């Protein structure tokens, strides 16, 4: 009998690890640019089951987590920085200094609504109005209203339903005490609705939705201008139609943005996008359906041709009618 050479090897690959191993063996491990060969060896040393691919995946996830931490840190820093504006106590929230407005808007780009809420809370703790460009104090209810959780707000005479009486709002006191005035509340909440829900480390580089934050005053100024712009000529309309085309390279890039899993994360928490256009094959095109005689009756329903019920009913009805007579 010949001496056996170790345990017999199974031909079937049933377990998941071995299946993965087979797949991994086929694919060459993607070389990571930031890691030299000796560094790789150092990490892999003492871990017999690991290969360069595992290391790569581990590194990628670590980088993702690091990017997330960095971004959170950045938001915290911004929150603290923003507490310092407006610098002058006489600044007007309705027409802030352009410089401060710019700082304010650029800092808020990376915020989520919850971060913004934290920022407002932080301002209130410093006895400031919740709107970032307002130097006034937030309002405090009088001492006798301290115990009440809700506040009744009455409108002007004739503002009620049907133009009679007064309109009335019941507002939680803590909501009311966030701001110095209703105008500031409006301004602050107008900014809040413009912030993007997804965290900054998941946003795409070209996601411009939250990049351009407008102050309420700017938005109002814009809206007043718009009606004039609306009466456009046919030329403008056709120009607009041209704009809608997808063939425009910018547009197509926007459409093609699809986050892949192995994109490299940048230090500032943004995803670097690499666009790969999908190649279109010129396959056979389908022809339009043609009319056939059996289609006149509605045809078959998934292969089943219903019996003609229509012929039976009338005779039965007739019979009934005759019986009655």
């Amino acid at each position, binding site marked *: 009998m010949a001496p056996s050479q170790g345990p017999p090897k199974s031909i079937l690959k049933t377990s998941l690890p071995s299946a993965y191993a087979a797949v991994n063996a086929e694919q060459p491990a993607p070389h990571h640019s930031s890691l030299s060969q000796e560094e790789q060896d150092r990490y892999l040393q003492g871990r017999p089951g690991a290969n360069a691919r595992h290391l790569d995946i581990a590194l990628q996830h670590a980088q993702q987590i690091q990017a997330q931490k960095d971004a959170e*840190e950045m938001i*915290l820093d911004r929150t603290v920085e923003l507490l310092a504006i407006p610098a002058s106590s006489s600044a007007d929230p309705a027409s802030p200094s352009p410089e401060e407005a710019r700082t304010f808007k650029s800092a808020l780009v990376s915020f989520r609504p919850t971060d913004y809420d934290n920022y407002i809370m932080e301002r209130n*703790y*410093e006895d400031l109005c919740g709107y970032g460009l307002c130097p006034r104090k937030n309002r405090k209810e009088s001492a006798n209203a301290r115990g009440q959780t809700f506040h009744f707000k009455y409108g002007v005479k004739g503002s009620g339903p049907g133009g009679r009486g007064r309109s009335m709002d019941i507002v939680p006191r803590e909501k009311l005490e966030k701001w110095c005035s209703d105008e500031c509340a409006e301004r602050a909440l107008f900014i809040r609705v413009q912030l993007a829900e997804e965290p900054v480390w998941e946003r795409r580089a070209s996601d411009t939705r939250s990049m351009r934050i407008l102050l309420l005053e700017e938005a109002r100024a814009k809206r007043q201008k718009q009606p004039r712009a609306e009466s456009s000529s046919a030329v403008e309309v056709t120009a607009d139609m041209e704009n809608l085309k997808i063939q425009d390279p910018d547009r197509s890039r926007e459409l093609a943005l699809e986050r892949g899993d192995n994109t490299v994360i940048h230090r500032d928490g943004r995803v670097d996008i690499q666009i790969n256009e999908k190649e279109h094959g010129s396959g056979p095109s389908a022809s339009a359906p043609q009319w056939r005689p059996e289609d006149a009756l509605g045809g078959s329903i998934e292969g089943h041709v219903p019996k003609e019920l229509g012929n039976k009913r009338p005779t039965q009805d007739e019979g009934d009618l005759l019986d009655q007579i």
Partner: protein
Amino acid sequence: MDGEIAQRSGDEADKEMTRLWRTWRTVYEMLSDRGYEVSDDELQLSLIDFKHKYADPMGYPDRTKMKIQARPTEEMKMKYTALPSKSNPTPQPDCGTIYVDFCPDSSGVGTKQVRAFNHIVDESNFHTGVFITQTPISPSAVRLLSGIPGRICEHFQEQDLLVNITRHELVPKHVLLSPEEKARLLERYRLKESQLPRMQVSDPVARYLGLRRGQVVKIIRKSETAGRYASYRWVI
């Protein structure tokens, strides 16, 4: 009329003083349970002495005076020293002087106060800081508090420490294992640490004991059948 108001405010001050005294005592018990050097006098400070020491002329507590520093005992240092390894043959204990600060602000504790606290901890080179406030602190402040690299900052509310939860009869005794004891335990049961039952760092008892990720605690509870029953938890 004036006398009545004075009487009422006196009552109020008394009430606040008593509450704060209980918190104060729990803080000392906590420090002693964690293994810091605390004298018996400090542990058994009476309300009258406490009032005498920390009350302002109005009878209200003066929190700015209330600061505690404590050094770890040898036993604690041993528990916090990692096992010697090839890369680190002589490990240093990962614990040091603790600093406890009571925040005097009665509402709205935000990043401003926490930054001041962080500054003190960093400046005086304390290993651990405990920040005690009367109200909850803002989310950004929480993040800021945990953000000093190389130092540990914890936060408690005064009302969390009003009673010492570990003295309750339904809370079993938690004992922190040293790295050596942990290694022995894992070897005895032939386990990896990830195979142990777990416990969160945010668990009230874990917060009380200042446990850190990766440590193992032994929980000893009474058992009707066995007398004593020990189980282990891996802190994550």
